[in-house]
């Protein structure tokens, strides 16, 4: 029997049992769809983060205080070191010629208040270089003072949402507010940009780094963001950074320099793991579909006993009968997979069109994995029924005996 004939024969058998085939198709396509749709959420998150990073350009480096001595693992988000990374350290890095911007960051939470309106938010202490490195824009007002690294000027720039909440009635620029125990004047508003790397920029305040040092009463930098003049300078720049910091830190380069790829890879790894396990859980529904296939195949074998007997008397061998039944399941599963794929891709497409804020995308690997799993399930679960079909005694079957 040729492959095309197997297909035709299976197709005819499926087309005859419309309701039964439809139910099985439904089960398989639901299984495939649930895998695809669930992984599409994870993949959407991954793409979102990737987009966030790529908006920063490939020229960014992050210097973190502290050093992990073991290599090969994900970069540390928080390191520990006896020596703080200071504003002076960050100023020293400016002498490296391949670096265009150096933005020291002190971060902390504090209460921001305007009379009776108060919020606990994240305060970023930094310099104007931060705006260049992170592509931030001022919507109204001006940027931080040029001497932010040396003078604790009591001024601040607010995220759009924060400004709206604290000054609902009037424009925030020019107004005074209170951060912690100090009074600050609002000099600018950030342009709307939404989240960036998990920080909601709409809901935070940016103050000069020197002011933050006073506010939080600590000289320790949270990190330093650097932008290279060209991405190719990376290795050389990292070497120089390490060298300079070592000189300043009594010979010990107790920092970790992370490039964007490393951070991105770490994120990717985590999200891939999460997405894959969600997909794995969804694959349980494929196994349920498989058990359904097995049940229905058994019924089908009993119903088609006479036909099996006939095929044998017409010269089909046991293995051919076996193949006919396996092929039947395979054809069915394949249709189910196709329907599932079409269904979930259309659904994701609709979401992308109508709700562009929600990041969803079906990853190619989950499409592949779901298809292969479904087909494997179809084969495995119809193996025993097919074996039963192959073992039918043609004489009894043709006589109509069970």
């Amino acid at each position: 029997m040729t492959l095309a004939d197997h297909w035709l024969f299976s197709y005819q058998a499926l087309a005859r049992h419309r309701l039964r085939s439809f139910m099985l198709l439904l089960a398989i396509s639901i299984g495939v769809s649930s895998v695809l749709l669930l992984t599409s959420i994870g993949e959407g998150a991954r793409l979102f983060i990737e987009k966030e990073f790529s908006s920063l350009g490939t020229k960014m480096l992050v210097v973190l205080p502290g050093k992990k001595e073991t290599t090969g693992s994900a970069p540390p988000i928080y390191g520990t070191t006896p020596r703080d990374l200071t504003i002076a350290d960050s100023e020293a890095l400016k002498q490296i010629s391949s670096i265009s911007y150096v933005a020291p960051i002190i971060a902390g939470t504090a209460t921001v208040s305007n009379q009776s309106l108060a919020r606990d938010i994240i305060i970023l202490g930094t310099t104007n270089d931060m705006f260049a490195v992170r592509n931030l824009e001022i919507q109204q007002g001006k940027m931080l003072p040029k001497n932010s690294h040396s003078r604790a000027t009591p001024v601040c720039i607010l995220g759009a949402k924060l400004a709206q909440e604290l000054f609902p009635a009037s424009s925030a620029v020019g107004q005074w507010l209170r951060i912690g125990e100090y009074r600050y004047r609002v000099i600018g508003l950030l342009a709307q940009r939404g989240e960036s790397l998990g920080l909601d920029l709409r809901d935070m305040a940016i103050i000069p780094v020197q002011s933050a040092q006073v506010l939080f009463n600590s000289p320790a930098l949270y990190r330093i963001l650097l932008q290279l003049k060209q991405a190719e300078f990376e290795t050389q720049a990292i070497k120089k950074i390490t060298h300079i910091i070592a000189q300043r830190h009594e010979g010990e380069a107790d920092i970790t320099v992370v490039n964007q790829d490393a951070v991105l890879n770490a994120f990717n790894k985590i999200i891939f793991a999460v997405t894959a396990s969600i997909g794995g859980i969804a694959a349980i529904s494929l196994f349920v579909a498989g058990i359904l296939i097995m049940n229905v195949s058994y019924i089908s074998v009993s119903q088609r006993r006479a036909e099996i007997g006939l095929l044998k008397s017409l010269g089909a061998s046991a293995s051919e009968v076996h193949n006919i039944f396996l092929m039947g399941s395979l054809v069915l599963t394949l249709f189910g997979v196709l329907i599932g794929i079409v269904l979930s891709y259309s659904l994701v497409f609709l979401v992308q069109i109508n709700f562009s804020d929600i990041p969803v995308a079906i990853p190619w690997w989950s499409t592949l994995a779901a298809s292969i799993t479904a087909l494997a399930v179809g084969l495995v679960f119809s193996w025993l029924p097919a074996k039963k079909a192959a073992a039918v005694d043609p004489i009894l079957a043709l006589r109509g005996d069970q």
Partner: protein
Amino acid sequence: MTNNPIIKISDISKTYQVGDQPLHALRDIKLDINQGEYISLMGPSGSGKSTLLNMIGLLDRPDSGQYQLLGNNTELLAEELRAKLRREHIGFVFQSFHLIPRLTALENVEVPLMLSGTAPKVRRKKASALLTELGLGEHLAQLPRQLSGGQLQRVGIARALITEPAIILADEPTGNLDQQSGHEVTQILERYNHNGITLIVVTHDQTLGKRATRQLSMLDGQLVSDFNRVNSSTIPTSELA
């Protein structure tokens, strides 16, 4: 006719276990059948005639004895090879037709060629030519449920003939048909026998059985008579029902 029998059965026995009683379906059957013979196999229910037919059709294996089909020793052949022999040399015609209900008349006739891997175009042409020859040219695309009994059996015969087998095994081919249709079916089978196909018919019907040139009778798993009408290659018209 050659002197070499195409079917050579020597001392075949078959026992079934029915409950705790052994049932001797076949006992030491010896039978040689030549190319082109017209044989009827008669006997009461349970006499073993169907078992013998299945044995000849390679659907069943003997417990002991030898069976040579077209010079092949079949007792020890693997299932695959037995299936191949069956596919190439034997055509079955059943009392209850056994057409696949979801397939059209044409597709039903094509099934044996599909199993042997013949190209769709070739087998379609061959099957429609054969069905037309059997007077079903207008019913090619009809499903079994749209056909009458006589038509169904003609489709069944076409399916048996499509592989151009050496032997046709017919188990009560007219058992489910009215007299007129039964008569037509018998005539078709006899026409092909006349053209050289070996025809073996199992039947209860004395009239049908007596039409055969060689009439075998079975009782309790044994051949009890083997009557050969000498020189009767033409059938007297007076015997037609």
